[in-house]
């Protein structure tokens, strides 16, 4: 069936060597991006010196730009799009809400603010629903752990204090049916730890203008389409708020779309796998 939905991945999808297919195809754009960012984007992506690619203030602009180029290169024209956390910016770009370099600028700001809040860690837990996990967190009194991403019925990402996360993971993995491990992110994103970034980003967005979306973009924060009205609010809240991926995908599936109509942009397959899991839930 024809592709109707594009899915853009977020942090975690970065890898050394990414973008090597597209940088050469768009040399001018790439060069401008590097100039605007103030560092050599190609060198970062291909060589990842000092592992900077995993530092959020580098991860975000790099991933945004590479996936933006991928979309430019190959993406079909579809009515729906959705992006996971950072990927939401690629989706909004695709939907024409802003242009390539405005998006880059926004992403850079977002990333810088988040980096400044960066303390804590994140972990992905497979095998528990968000409410089950929330329950465990409360019982154990992990007051500094929050559900960051509700990715499917049984995949949840949690953010919070590094030590408490380590304890939580140890507790969870006692049950061999549960898998959990720390993510390569440098902060406790999508959690109250990010509150300072939200406020600052809000200020930053307040006097900017954006276009209304030309495609249907499902918001992480609301799990429903972006409108011109809720744009800035959703974007800001998205930083500290839960990524309601599960709900978002279900929203799309409930409109009658089939899983094979979704296509992931970029070379990774996280979102494709998640989609398959989510689809199975209702089957």
């Amino acid at each position: 069936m024809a592709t109707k939905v594009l899915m853009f991945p977020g942090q975690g999808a970065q890898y050394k060597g990414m973008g090597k297919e597209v940088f050469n195809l768009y040399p001018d754009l790439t060069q401008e991006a590097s100039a605007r960012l103030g560092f050599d984007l190609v060198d970062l992506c291909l060589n990842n010196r000092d592992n900077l690619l995993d530092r959020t203030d580098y991860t975000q602009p790099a991933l945004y730009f590479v996936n933006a180029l991928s979309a430019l290169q190959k993406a079909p024209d579809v009515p729906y799009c959705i992006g996971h956390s950072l990927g939401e910016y690629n989706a909004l770009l695709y939907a024409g809400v802003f242009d390539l370099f405005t998006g880059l600028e926004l992403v850079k700001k977002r990333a810088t603010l988040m980096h400044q809040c960066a303390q804590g860690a994140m972990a992905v837990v497979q095998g528990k629903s968000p409410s089950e996990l929330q329950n465990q967190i409360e019982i154990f009194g992990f007051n500094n752990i929050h559900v960051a991403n509700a990715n499917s019925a049984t995949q949840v990402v949690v953010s919070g204090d590094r030590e408490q996360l380590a304890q939580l993971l140890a507790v969870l993995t006692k049950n061999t049916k549960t898998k959990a491990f720390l993510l390569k992110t440098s902060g406790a994103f999508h959690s109250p730890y990010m509150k300072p970034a939200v406020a600052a980003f809000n200020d930053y967005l307040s006097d900017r203008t954006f276009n209304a979306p030309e495609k249907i973009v499902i918001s992480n924060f609301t799990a429903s389409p972006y409108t011109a009205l809720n744009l800035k609010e959703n974007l800001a809240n998205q930083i500290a708020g839960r990524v309601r991926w599960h709900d978002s995908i279900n929203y799309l599936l409930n409109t009658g779309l089939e899983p094979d109509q979704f296509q992931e942009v970029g070379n990774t397959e996280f979102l494709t796998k998640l989609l398959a899991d989510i689809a199975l839930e209702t089957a």
Partner: protein
Amino acid sequence: MKDIAIIGMAVDLPNTKSLEAFWKLISEANTLVGEFPEKRQEQAIKHMRYRRSRSAHSFKQERESFHNGCFLNDAEMFDYRFFNITPKQAQTMDPHQRLLLKTFYRAIDDAGYANKHFRDAETGVFVGFASNPGNDYTTYINDVDPTLGQVALTGNVPCMLANRISHFLDLHGPSTIVDSACSASLVATLNAVKAIQAGDCRMAMVGGARLCTPIADQSSKIGIESSDGKTRTFDARADGTGLGEGSGAVVLKSLDDAIADGDNIYAVLKGGAINHDGFTESLTTPDAGAQSKLLEKAWANAGIKPTDISYIEAHGTATKVGDPIEINGLKKATSAYDFHQHQVALGTVKTNIGHLFEASGILSVIKVALMLQHKSLVKTANFVTENPLLNLDSSPFFISKETRDWTPVNSKYLAGISAFGLGGTNCHVLIEAAPQTSSETEHYTGPHLFTCSAPSLQSFERLKQDWIDYLSTRLADDNLAAICQTQLLRRQHHAFRTAKVVSSMEELMAFVSHMSPTQRPNQPEAHDVFELSNSMNVSTIQEHYLAGGLFSYEKAKQHERHLYVKTPSPSFDEVDCLLRFPDDISLLPPNFERDGLVTFCTRYHEKPLPGVNLPDSSLKYLILDIEGSAKAQELSTILSATGCDVTRVEVGNTCDITGDNKSVRLVETDFSDLATFVKQEGISQIIHVTHSGESADNTEALNADVNRKLNSLFWLAKALITQSHKCRLTVLTENARYIEHKMAKDTINEVNASLIGLGIVIPRETPFISVKSIDIEPSTPARTILFELGANTTQRMAVYRGDIRYTEVFEYNDVISSKYSDCDIREGGTYLITGGTGDLGLAVAQMLAEKSCVNIVLTSRRGLPAEADWSDIHEEEILSKIAKIRSVQALGSKVLVKAVDASDRDSVRQLCQEMIGSFGKIDGIFHAAGIPGTGLISNRSQKQFDDVIQPKIQGTYFLSELIEEVSLDFLVLFSSVAAVFPTAGQSDYSAANSYMDAFAAKHNGKVRIVSMQWCAWKEIGMAVAYNTQHDLTFKSIPTEQGLDCLYNAIRHTPNHIFVGEVNYTDKIVDILKNLGIDLSADILEKIDHRTTMRTNLTALTAETEDLPTHSQSNCQCTLTGRSDGDYTAMEIVVANSWAESLGYEEIDLDDEFLQLGGESITALSIVSAINNESSVKIDVALLLELSSVRNIAAYLTEELEVA
């Protein structure tokens, strides 16, 4: 008076182990004199040099030499397995005891009563013994290794010489030892005779044993030793006694019973007498008059005519003085009677075997019995020319100079035996030949069942050869019935058995030449007792016998007269049990420096858990919520959430253990019920939860706190211990411990600290309960407790402040040499010492008076009589106290003594009023009142518990109320090592002192408050009174140094000071590493350094054959249990630790620890040894649970892989 028959005898002399060999020796007039065996010379020299090096006396450097004499060359050989003794016990057993065990056993076997079930339990044991002051075995053992004292106890207490024999043979008659020096075993013989005559027992065994170390130097001579070790009694060249070693034993029964029972009768004892010389010119000179009267009495008692006597076995010590006196005594006694000239032969066994002192009497009896059996008078050894001083010509006596047939006198073969003790106890016994017994016996026709057994394969092989030899000369005897009956009824049935139905001696010979045993199977059915009777089919008996069955002989005993013939019995499998003396190198490494008295403290260091682990959800948990705390509820919820089975029990007004809302009252019996419940339900994890709340600010609140928290733990512990329930007890407290800078001092809860003190004692009293303390603060999340519960650590305590984890570390903390503050003893100051009339209190008073002229008030519960009455006192204890007080007063200080119970608030307050009234203030208080813990939790009554707790908990509290009122400079609390390193029996003491430690931590500040954790004082104090002041893991405190330390403590700042000196030189110090508290690096280094040095030392001194030396840490024992002989390195390590501790040469993989004779001290030393070598640690409870080398090694290996 009844005649008493000698029905069994045994001797153990140098190279002379059988009666036949003994007869040969005496009938051929040989002597056993030789050199003192070289192997024994070595040990003796090493020991002697060690003793001399430690003596204040300076000895001339001279070559050690030894007298010649009749010495055993196999005294160290012993079959410990046969006697159910562990190798270590055998090594530390007095060799006299070992020798007696062997000889008595062989004697009872000779009598035909080795079979326990055929034997009369109403048999007495009478041993002649003489103590050996200065040279006893306990001195030797103590010098080899003082820690052997405990295992050596029963092997060296004199009563065991007899009692152990009664125990081993299951004899219920009288069991006593008698010490009258050289007459002891003859006196014992007479006592046995009288006991049978009086009906105290039906059968009796008598014996004695003697071993000596014949050092030839001036200081050890007693004046009777001969010049060359030979005893030349009655000879002109006699110049003293030769020393002799050995043992003898006889079995006695009334003559009538012996005949009726078909026993073999050697001779018959008629009776005798004992008397004492009374006053003589010197204590040790014998007296002819007394000896003469002795004979008269003996004759009367025996009911014989003296003119029937034809032999006297003389005491005959061959001393210039003694021999003539003895002859005079004999002459005097016989002078009134009509003897023929040279009617009575004289002789003494001492010429053959030397003087065996306490054992000489019994050997004389055995010699004469053999003479009577053979009807032969023997030649006196070492005799050439008669001593002219004897003047025998005109007397009835002559020296027996040749071995010839004994001519009866008046148809009687009657003899007398004399023995005279060093201290003047004399004994004479009359003995006669056995009566002719009719040889009519019932002959059994038809086939006979021949049975034969031995305790081991090797023993069986030797026995087989003995049987071949025995039968080869007896084929013509018509003795088959007697042989078979003897074997079945009278011989002990061992594990390696064989049996055959035979009809002729030839058939028996053929069987015996090829017989091979089957090992009795170890099945319960095989031990059914079979009633043996004449009507039983022989093949049934055979089958039952080979199956390992036991027989009851009641029916058999009733009907027949039992034939007895002396068939061969198995010999012992003897092993060298010598306790070697370490080589003559100083036992301390040359550069080892002792600490001297130093001070320590307990600090806390951060020690995070190695990982995150959840508690095992296959176990069951019980939360005892003592105070209805939120934490208990959270913990319960969180434990359930991880899948654990949790039961929560509250403390309330009802006792309901069965319903859903479980509760107990604060009543001991409810806790008992709770423990029963816990055991029934298989709940193995119990958590006692308290929280801190406000510290009590009045007496009622304090008492309520103590009752609720401490008593509940006490009752819980007691109930669990009584149930022997294997479990882990977690004591969860809040704010019990002070972590500097991590908490506010005023949040410390002292009562909670006492819970920790009680908790650490529990595992010292029982291997079934492991205890962990977790001390948190209110903000510590429940999950932190959860992870601690799931952790597998060796520390006995974890402290959390927030969620940072701390554990204890014991380290040096010098306060002796420095002064830190201005706090001091004031001139004219007033000082209160509670518990002040004890030694320690008085010593403190003396110290104060030496510093300044002060007013001192001493209190104790009873006080002392009023000073006005002191001149009327006679009780020594009180007089000594008075003397000490006087000496304090003499220095210019005032001393008042008041009777005040430190646990009574009103008394304490009243005292305070009085002191303020008299002196205006109190400058310092030493709170030393209290009594030690002296009983296990399981035996402790509430009152005993309270008596220890109250002076220290309530007592300290009452004193604290006074602090403001009296403007105190300092308060010193006398706490104890028991709060850090307690031993069993100190639960209440540790709890009480822990309270004081926490109190000092909380309140030390403006007013100097310090808790002194004293080790035992060496010369004074409770430890001396209760005899526990000996150096163990910590050396005892010398008084003067202790007092210096006390004085400095006042002027320093730490809130607690541990005073002691680690006993690095003793192996026992290794235990410190396994008590669940970390030791600082420098302490650990010193302990390990000592171990290395000691290992090197013993590696040099150890010999590879025979038993390993007791402290050989690289000993190689032989492992058995696997057919391919392939053992893992871990199994070898574990087995070696067992071998070293227990002393076994060979250990089977599946031998069980307790069955090998292991107990708590050996368990602890094995655990220490293993933990030294293994990174995976075990504890005593685990050792007992795993129980075998195989299991322990498997456990350690598995844990290593997991790690």
